[in-house]
């Protein structure tokens, strides 16, 4: 490896060494079937931080192909204290369908001025069924 290669490797390596982050999270439930009489179904999820360090998390809703779903999330971005948990209400529109499968994911968000190379994502699978008489 010539000097240019070593220099480039060093730059890339140094640039990629970020502080070790203890980003962790969990979420419950991870499976649920919800029946609804309206054109929206509601899911209550509980993101949790099982570790002592606070973490920033974001709750997002995706379809089965991980395309974003226009759902209402009460408190999309927030900080979870160490060993803390928070209840989040998610309202998902049926968009004219009788059933809708979505993924609700809790994602770690890097703190400002820190770059994270690995982003953890915990996703629950939820099925909404619209009851029509």
């Amino acid at each position: 490896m010539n000097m240019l290669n070593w220099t480039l490797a060093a730059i890339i390596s140094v640039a990629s060494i970020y502080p070790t982050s203890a980003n962790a999270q969990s979420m419950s439930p991870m499976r649920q079937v919800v029946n609804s009489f309206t054109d929206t179904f509601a899911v209550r999820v509980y993101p949790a931080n099982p570790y002592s360090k606070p973490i920033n998390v974001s709750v997002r809703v995706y379809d089965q192909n991980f395309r974003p779903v226009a759902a209402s999330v009460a408190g999309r971005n927030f900080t979870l204290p160490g060993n803390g948990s928070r209840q989040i209400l998610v309202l998902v529109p049926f968009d004219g369908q009788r059933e809708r499968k979505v993924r609700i994911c809790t994602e770690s968000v890097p703190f400002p001025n820190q770059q994270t190379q690995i982003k953890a994502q915990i996703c629950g699978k939820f099925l909404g069924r619209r009851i029509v008489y």
Partner: protein
Amino acid sequence: MSRLPILLALFVSSPAIAAQDTVTFNATINATCTILVESNGTMSVDTNMQNLSSKNVGGTPGRVTITTTGGVNFSVDGSPIVTPPGTDTTATTWTPTYESSGLLALAERTNATAITIPGSHTLDVHLTGVKSGSDTFGAGVYAGTVIVRCE
């Protein structure tokens, strides 16, 4: 009056009848998953300047620990978010992979894995960028983010 001794004898000699029943316990453990990012990875370029990877000499994989009841799927998102330096103007194909050893032995792969073994498992996460043709990586800072997913 003459029956009193007989009744008394019955009270005295009757054994105590023990009542017996069962108490049942049920429990349902729902699938859970926790991801801990133990460390981020570093990438290093190969001698041809066409492969930037955590698997090259000088590179290190990222490491995550998942703790689960089982019954979940682990995967890495196939579309990592990579920010190249301004000097890099050519296309790069980025591929995230993962592997693990020990109780949960997984050969390096890109696709999702059903985790059936409950407990904590440590996995190594790699990121590799490849240039084609005569394109090469340029000097500067490359920042990549790989999404690891448990669902």
